[in-house]
């Protein structure tokens, strides 16, 4: 057991830190849930890509540096430490890409991964439907083989709650290709350009008034068969690989929480120390650290060639609750100022609080996650 980083990892850290110090915009970019902000964040992705910092863990041929899991964690620590912009490409680079690297054809990887890394093509996720949220296998959007145009599929239906859907260039989604099959079978994973005829996007204003997510309507959308990811009919298992990334290691790096907990500590100190929030501040710090340690623990297993175990199903519950707790503690410290939409401290915490509240809902609600923990980790029977 050794909880120190190697000289090589520290050298990588220094390189990342220096690059970020020189390149992170000094003024915060406009919100990525606005048209202007979306393009500003796209440009930032391109800046990172030019110096090979946008997807460090990917193979070199697709724009990465092929670094190991600990270097990726080091990069993430530096990224949050530098308070660099939010990742507008996160659905693509953190969710779709690991799935594509596992299930995609060589042609698909070559076609989709480089522009994803460069920020030239930003992806959104088309999973939830009006009647299929927690019960994801209940999706009704369907795809049928195009009888008039061999090798093509025709997609119809409606997706919703697609984060960044209002401005994204591409969408990955699951559609029902065999209505007769058992509901977890008969699903297929598609890659769809958002400018394909028949795709209509209706942005949905969020709780904060910005259009972070969108409904996407598919009306006889024609998609060629090389835009199927994985086998036809195997969409559920491909989708679960994406969900594993989302809930497991790759979506929420611990640095996000340790950085927020550090800022909370600064806020606590700036407000004069001991108060009704003292316990909550200490707990927020510990939970963020515990998540980091748990990630190192899991990553060490992975580095030794083991698979991420069912313990990873605990992660999403823990990081989402931790995020809410950190931001609640901050608002409590701010007291009557917490409602102010000011630039800087109060507004930033309020913004973070609203976003944190989405955490226990997206990527599979925490109630669904608790069922998973109970069934896979504790061996309790399905209800």
């Amino acid at each position, binding site marked *: 057991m050794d909880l120190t980083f190697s000289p090589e990892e520290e050298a990588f850290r220094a390189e990342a830190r220096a690059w970020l110090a020189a390149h992170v915009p000094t003024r915060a970019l406009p919100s990525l849930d606005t048209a202007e902000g979306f393009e500003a964040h796209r440009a930032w992705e391109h800046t990172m890509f030019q110096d090979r910092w946008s997807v460090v863990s990917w193979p070199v041929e697709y724009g990465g540096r092929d670094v190991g899991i600990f270097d990726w964690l080091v990069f993430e620590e530096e990224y949050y430490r530098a308070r660099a912009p939010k990742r507008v490409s996160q659905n693509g680079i953190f969710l779709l890409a690991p799935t594509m690297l596992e299930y995609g054809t060589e042609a698909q990887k070559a076609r989709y991964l480089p522009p994803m890394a460069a920020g030239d093509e930003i992806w959104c996720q088309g999973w939830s439907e009006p009647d299929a949220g927690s019960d994801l296998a209940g999706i009704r959007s369907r795809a049928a083989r195009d009888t008039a145009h061999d090798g093509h599929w025709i997609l119809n239906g409606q997706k919703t709650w697609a984060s960044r859907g209002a401005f994204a260039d591409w969408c990955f989604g699951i559609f029902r290709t065999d209505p007769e099959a058992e509901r977890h079978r008969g699903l297929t994973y598609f890659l769809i350009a958002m400018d394909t005829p028949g795709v209509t996007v209706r942005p949905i204003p969020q709780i904060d008034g910005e259009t972070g997510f969108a409904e996407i309507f598919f009306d006889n959308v024609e998609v060629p068969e090389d835009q199927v990811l994985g086998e036809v009919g195997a969409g559920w298992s491909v989708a679960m690989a994406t969900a594993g990334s989302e809930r497991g290691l790759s979506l929420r790096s611990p640095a996000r929480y340790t950085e927020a907990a550090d800022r909370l500590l600064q806020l606590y100190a700036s407000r004069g120390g001991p108060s009704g929030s003292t316990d909550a501040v200490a707990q927020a710090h510990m939970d963020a650290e515990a998540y980091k340690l748990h990630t190192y623990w899991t990553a060490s297993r992975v580095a030794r060639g083991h698979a991420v175990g069912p313990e990873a199903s605990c992660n999403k519950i823990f990081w989402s609750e931790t995020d809410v707790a950190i931001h609640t503690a901050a608002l409590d410290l701010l007291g009557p100022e917490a409602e102010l939409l000011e630039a800087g401290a109060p507004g930033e915490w309020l913004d973070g609080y609203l976003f944190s509240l989405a955490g226990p809902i997206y990527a599979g609600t925490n109630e669904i996650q608790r069922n998973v923990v109970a069934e896979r980790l504790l*061996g309790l029977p399905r209800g």
Partner: protein
Amino acid sequence: MDFAFTDEQEALREGVRTVLDTECTPDALRAFELADESARVAQSQNRWAVLAELGAPALVVPEAADGLGLNDVDLVGVLEEAGRAGLPEPLLQTAALAAPTLAALLPDPAATAALAALVRDDVSFAVGGIDVTPGGLVSPTEVSADGTLRTPRVVGARDAGLLLLAVRDADSGWQLHAVPAASCTAYATPALSASRDLSTVHWPLASDTLLAYGVAAEAAVGLLADRAAAGTAALLIGLTERMLDLSAAYAKERHQFGKPIGSFQAVKHLLADARVALEFARPATYRAAWSLATAQPTLSHDASMAKAMASDAADRAARVALQVHGAIGYTWECDLHFFLKETWALSRDWGDAATHRRLVLAQLRAG
């Protein structure tokens, strides 16, 4: 970065588990509580001898002092297993507190003699006289009019050969002593858990038992309290796992409304939340062991964090376990209560979760 145990460390833990699965069953714990004094002592001595044969008490004693020369990272899994089994014997006090504290004081003659008794005579240790508070360490040891010292809530005094006892004087600071049992009088203090061996110990202040005083004693006592927090966290991790195992098994077996109660979400979610708390307290506890083994500057912070998280996880698991068991869990006949009572005691021993949260924050603000 390699946050994992070696195969040898896993094997050591496995060895201890195998032994305790035989020597420290719930039936043995039940018999232990019902036994008369001679039968109780016999059971205890037999189990201690088995643990001594594995080298458990002397695990972290240097090889030069005839120990196994291992460290806190090797020990943490052993303590976890002791917690999991509800082991009544003072393994924490002997292996995790007395052994490294004495080893660090070598070649002091009193420490040398005490360590020799630990390694060669399989003597077990009691530890007392240190309380952890949000403001720091205090000693509950009082000096009576005749000069005798009285230390309340000493754990392990009943069968101990030696007692590691601390006293703090407002003027001269801390003193740490290794006192032979023969020089002490232990007045047993009944506690909720019959296997918790608590006493008020009366002992004479003597120069030949003195291990350290002043600055050296303050450092030794501070490190001892950190080791106690980290080691107790490991015991609590084991207890938490045990309580969840018992509860999950019961939830699969107990039927109501024609189904196992574990198929109901209300029950699943109670257990899942307790399982999540365990999942994240565990690496915090392992990190504290590593920080102790490698003398990290953050070791006080790390030990306090481990204790806070493990205490909270164990308290939650205890509450959930009893709720899931229902009325049967409220009986003495059911095995669960051995682990509940141990948890309720240990979650507060060496500082409860709230105390350690304050200590964590104090460390951060000082750092």
